[in-house]
């Protein structure tokens, strides 16, 4: 375990809903995927709210280290991922359009944590022509890639971005909320950006899933050590949204092979399995992804799919936007 790599600077964290540190340990893991540091990390669960969070977590000035240049959200391209890229694009476009189906044809849509612009690009290609699409992205490398795709991106944190008030018909947080330092603050900022009744779509890893139950002590793909700072199940996500001024439209679970694939990969890697076997379980492996997709589809039927998909609406009752 002792390594010459530099240990990360860390800071203590607290529950993003109740603000306390009343938590119990759940899992311990390492950056199995990118090995960006020699550290190991602890996930704890708030005994009041059920939110699972990293404590301690990397300091904000370590973001460049923990999101390396080859990070997949910055580098998910067709050339490298081939058939997986095509399949994922088609699937995600269909899901997005379904979730946003009620929006007007000139809707303004904001993607928070848009990464390289993958989802906005999908909407541009397959949504109505009149949709006005914008993104927010903290990482300057990803923001640059998104801009090169011709997408309008505000670089920075959603809480700090100057985007006016009541401007958007819908905001998406697709596999973003788990990366945020303060999800409650972000949701409150989003609440102010939305028109009354405007929609918030959240997709995030599900701690109510079967894969979490099995692998939560260490290898769960959804930990994405140390990049996922807050993780939810349906009830904690709903609590967070309610306290941030949202009403729940729908919360369901969704099939995804990604966490299953990584859970197995992380375990094999951790136990020193042969490289070829470890590499079989990757986002570049259509066979593994297909098999886990089928498997997780059954979990989704039992409402224990790997991802949570929630649609919230800015509460009509709150005339005034919430204070931060």
């Amino acid at each position: 375990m002792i390594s010459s790599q530099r240990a990360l600077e860390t800071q203590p964290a607290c529950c993003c809903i109740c603000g306390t540190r009343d938590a119990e340990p759940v899992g311990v893991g390492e950056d199995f995927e990118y090995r960006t540091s020699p550290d190991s990390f602890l996930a704890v669960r708030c005994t009041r709210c059920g939110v699972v969070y990293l404590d301690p977590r990397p300091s904000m000035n370590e973001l460049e280290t923990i999101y390396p240049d080859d990070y997949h959200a910055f580098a998910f391209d067709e050339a490298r991922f081939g058939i997986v890229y095509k399949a994922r694009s088609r699937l995600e476009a269909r899901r997005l359009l379904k979730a946003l189906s009620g929006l007007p044809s000139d809707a303004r849509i904001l993607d928070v944590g848009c990464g390289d612009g993958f989802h906005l690009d999908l909407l541009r290609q397959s949504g109505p022509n009149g949709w006005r699409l914008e993104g927010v992205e903290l990482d300057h490398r990803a923001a640059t890639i998104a801009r090169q795709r011709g997408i309008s991106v505000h670089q920075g944190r959603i809480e700090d971005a100057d985007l006016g008030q009541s401007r958007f018909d819908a905001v998406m947080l697709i596999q973003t909320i788990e990366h945020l330092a303060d999800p409650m603050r972000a949701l409150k900022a989003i609440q102010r950006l939305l028109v009354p009744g405007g929609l918030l779509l959240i997709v995030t890893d599900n701690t109510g899933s079967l894969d979490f139950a099995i692998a939560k002590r260490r290898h769960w793909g959804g930990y994405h050590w140390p990049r996922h700072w807050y993780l939810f199940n349906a009830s904690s996500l709903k609590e967070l949204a309610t306290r941030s001024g949202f009403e729940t439209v729908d919360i369901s679970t969704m099939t995804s092979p990604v966490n299953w694939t990584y859970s197995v990969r992380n375990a094999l890697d951790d136990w020193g399995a042969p490289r070829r076997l470890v590499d079989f379980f990757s986002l570049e492996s259509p066979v593994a992804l297909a098999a886990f997709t089928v498997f997780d589809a059954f979990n989704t039927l039992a409402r224990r799919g790997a991802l949570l998909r929630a649609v919230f609406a800015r509460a009509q009752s709150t005339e005034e936007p919430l204070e931060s």
Partner: protein
Amino acid sequence: MSARPAADEAPIAIIGSGVSGLAAARELMHLGFDATVYESSNQIGGMADTQRDPDGFIFDTGAHFITNRFATAIGIAPLCRTVHRYGETVWSDGRAYDYPFGLMRNPRYLRGAINARIRSKRSVETAADQFRSEYGSEIADEVALPLLEQWSGLPADRLSPAVADKLPGGILATLALKLSARATNRAVAIGYCREAPQSANVWHVYPENGIATICAALTTELGDAVQTGNPVERVLTTDGRAVGVVVNGREIPAAAVISTLPVPHLAALTDEESLQPFRELRYRAMVFVNIMLRGCDVMPDTLTWTPGVEFPCFRISETTRSMPWLAPTGSTIITADFGATVGDSTWTEDDQVLEEMVLKALCAIVPSARRDFLGSRVLRSAFAYPIFDLAYEETRLALGRGTGIERLLSVGRNGEFAHILMEDSYWRTLRQVRALAAQLNESVQN
């Protein structure tokens, strides 16, 4: 972190800079409170102490392992090495049996254990009853009880059944963990921690520079909040509430007091009537005779229980079997643990005599011990194990419900008077400190 309401309150006083005191101070800081740690000694760490020999031998006071989870929680995981194996044996009739399941290879023990399982349970009032009904009289009388008696210095029928804490998770879970340790080549922690779940993913590690690394890490953020060489002389209370401490003859107001002292010592520092019963709680002292030998892996396993009368000690460990880096290559450290009472003949015995006693007994297990002998080093610990004497069982149980004084916590192994290791101490201390913090916040708001 939730913003603290502006408090004009005095800092919280923490007594003792061992693992628990430092963990309490760090947590309070994370919660936005001011705390001062007073330490009587000139160095931090308390019982989590590491000593080094110029020849490269490393001694802890007692054997010390921590888990990867605890190391992670306090931020020292990158400084720790994985312990690949750990096992216990019982030396009986001139041979070693794996503990606990290997004992079942002895047909008499097996029969006794099965009988104990089948027989309807009699009421359990003492540790002796407890062991006999759990494991059968054969194992209890020949193995468990002699060890317990040496270890605690009292006959087993005068000890509380609570000393015989069951393995968390039971037999099947224990077996599964043992198998997972084999499969992963990690010393999976078994029966080590009760406050957080056991799993194949929680295993023993050891800090590269010794166990003292733990407290060094816990203090890094604390700066001058830790005041060594400053014994607390009194704990001040008013109307059943802790209000301050006396240090160097000076009264220092405190919003709350957190003590990690042995609880009888804490009681002696106050005038509170309600704490006085705690003064009768007693601890077993321990003398650790470290023998340095040429060779390695000379014992049957990392820890060997020695219930036989031919052994003056109750267990012998070879920590280097788990942590080879504690001794220079080609050599090893054997540690014999003696139960003692401060001031008794074992406690005051000459080091050379102790060394000779151990060498003589050790030859039954390691015939070459004398030939390979390199030297010895004797360490003593006055507060090694709380004694669960039935004579004060009510008092012990009362302490489990708190000190009874508002804003006075008694935490840590000796403060809680509990057989807990550092990780459990850590989680339990955090829990109590967080509850105290919530209470203080509430009283500021009202």
